[in-house]
């Protein structure tokens, strides 16, 4: 409401300013001449900031304590109200990262491409998976793309509040914007890597099966919601305990190998279910949201899965159902995470 009024006022003013500028033909606000600036702005703003206008605005409690399980909606509205700042912060994240480097944005692609090369050689050739799994390079890449999105968000969020201490201590804005801007930047990088994937399709001439493409947005949504939820909790806890950022590094390494990215999930099934009868443990393995997400990416984007040879490595369970359930759980987790984050956000400025 307030914002709307302001914009209209600026428009009205803009018209006035332009006509004034055209009249005397001088550059508006040349060095040192405060006079015209004052004269031009004085009029319209005066009325808008008068006592009556302010008295009409509602009195609001600053940082009103919210009950632990309510206030999610308020927070959402607030983030929405600050969406321009969110856009600016996201843009900053993207711009600052590779500023002053010649290749710039291309560096975003270097890490996954290098991982791809290393794993293709080490696992695909030396360990022989490449002879078994068709189009092993793309198989790896589909998993790595999903995993990179997840780690970018998680790693970035963990340092988001601590890294912006200067801002947090001096300016008020919904603190959620800091982790969210990391999410925004990570999604942009993800999109860029998908372009590389499309390039790979063009080069190999093998295109994925259209039927499962809907799994991609669903799986991506799961990653974003899940990683954002964890990211909010990590960002807040890192303020109080700096060990969190190191724990995240170690944890992500462990998590990477718990997810069927560089190996195929059938090996896990063989080991756990066929050889040892540990069905429960296997189900636990599949309950890892990232495992389902990666399986979904492989099913949707890895053309090799639809060949006779690749069919064995292709997860044919009900991924839509699984991802749907995981998404619901993750939304719940996001809700809890936001409440926890909001709880501690009031003290960020003094803890940093």
């Amino acid at each position: 409401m307030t914002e709307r009024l302001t914009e209209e006022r600026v428009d009205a003013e803009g018209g006035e300013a332009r006509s004034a500028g055209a009249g005397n033909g001088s550059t508006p606000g040349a060095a040192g001449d405060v006079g015209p600036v004052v004269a031009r702005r004085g009029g319209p703003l005066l009325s808008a900031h008068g006592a009556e206008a302010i008295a009409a605005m509602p009195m609001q409690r600053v940082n009103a304590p919210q009950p632990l399980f309510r206030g999610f909606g308020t927070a959402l509205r607030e983030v929405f109200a600050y969406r321009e700042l969110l856009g600016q912060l996201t843009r900053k994240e993207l711009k600052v990262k590779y500023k002053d480097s010649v290749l710039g944005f291309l560096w975003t692609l270097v890490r996954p491409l290098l991982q791809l090369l290393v794993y293709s050689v080490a696992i695909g050739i030396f360990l022989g998976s490449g002879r078994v799994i068709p189009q092993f390079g793309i198989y790896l890449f589909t998993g790595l793309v999903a995993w990179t999105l997840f780690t970018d968000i998680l790693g970035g969020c963990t340092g988001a509040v601590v890294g912006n201490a200067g801002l947090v201590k001096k300016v008020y804005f919904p603190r959620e914007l800091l982790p969210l801007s990391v999410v925004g930047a990570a999604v942009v990088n993800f999109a860029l890597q998908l372009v590389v994937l499309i390039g790979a399709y063009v080069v190999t001439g093998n295109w994925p099966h259209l039927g499962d493409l809907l799994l991609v947005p669903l799986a991506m949504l799961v990653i974003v919601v899940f990683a954002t939820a964890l990211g909010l909790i990590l960002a807040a806890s890192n303020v109080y305990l700096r060990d969190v950022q190191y724990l995240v590094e170690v944890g992500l390494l462990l998590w990477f190998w718990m997810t069927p990215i560089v190996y195929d999930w059938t090996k896990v099934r063989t080991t756990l279910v066929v050889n040892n009868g540990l069905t429960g443990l296997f189900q636990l393995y599949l309950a890892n949201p990232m495992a389902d997400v990666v399986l979904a990416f492989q099913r949707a984007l890895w053309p090799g899965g639809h060949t006779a040879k690749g069919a064995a490595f292709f997860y044919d369970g009900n991924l839509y159902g699984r991802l749907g359930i995981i998404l619901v759980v993750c939304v719940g987790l996001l809700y809890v995470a936001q409440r926890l984050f909001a709880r501690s956000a009031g003290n960020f400025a003094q803890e940093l």
Partner: protein
Amino acid sequence: MSSPVIRVVDVNKSFSLNKQKSLKERAVNLGRERKHRDSFTALRNVSFDVEAATTLGLIGHNGSGKSTLLKMIGGILTPDTGYVERRGRLAALLEVGAGFHGDLTGRENVFLNASILGLTRKQTEYYFDDIVAFADIGDRFIDTQVKFYSSGMYVRLAFAVAVHVDPEILLVDEVLAVGDEPFQRKCMERIKQFQREGRTIVLVTHGLDTVRQLCDRAILLDHGDMVVDGSSLEAVRTFREKYTEEPVHDDDYGGRQATITDVTVTNGAGNPADRFQPGDTLGVEFDVVPGEGPTIDDWAVGIALEDHLDNVVYGTNTHLQGVTLPPLSDKRRVRFRFPDLPMLEGQYYVTVAVHDTGGGITYHRLDRRSNFRVFSDGSEVGVLYLSTKIDVT
């Protein structure tokens, strides 16, 4: 009709002093945790309302809690108990260039910082030329990364963004004193324009003159307690009363061929005094005692009156005044008299010296040895007392 824009209700805040950020530190200090858990009260039972279009100054010495209070109004800190309410949009200038990033260009930083301060992109685009003109950094630099800016340019650009915000409430923390003199004037002009536009301003500053000039009202904080909530004159006066620096007694130097002792500030009647009103007579007197060596023929006595910022308000010496002094064979009493004291309210310090007439050799000099205060009635601001006559025809 009059309704508060900011309402601070019974706010308390304390900070814990032991900050342990890592598991190791916590583990090491586990047993001693209790003992080390000192807390520091930054604000105690602070309550006040601010009406619309008021300019409120928060004053107090370092650590009195004024910045904490400002941050609470701004929503950056949360009170332990009590609450803060406010209406309308708020912009906080707590640090110039808080959101600036060295790797971004001036243009990018303007947009980022403006949106941090609550401007929409559209508004920023509209104000953009004005911001660049206000900062006076030139079109050539606006697309350069700000890390290559001179510190003056950096600060000017940051401040230019800040003064173009469009809030109902503006919080300002000690950021007015940036840039060169013309720029400071521009900033001050801008603040006054905000006042004319009926915005509410809360200002934290150590510049008591700024408070006197800008604020309708001031709150004096002392170790978290609200001591005065009243006119800026009253608050500034109480602050000066309470925290007058003791004149520095051990800062003297010179060859000690002669020594100054017993510096006294007196009133018109010649009695010791330290409070004056404009128009009173101020006297400063002291003894000059010759040293061990031969009798000094070539000597002069100088005096300087300085304000609280070490600016020399007035200075002269006997040589410049054409006073011939007899040889310094014995102890002499020197009396300076300044009738019709032409100064407005403030804290002033007296520096005295005895030296040769050329001014090249200092025999003895006492910096800020004594002090006095001038109280004026608040009908005037500034430093100079003029016997004003107003004639309206």
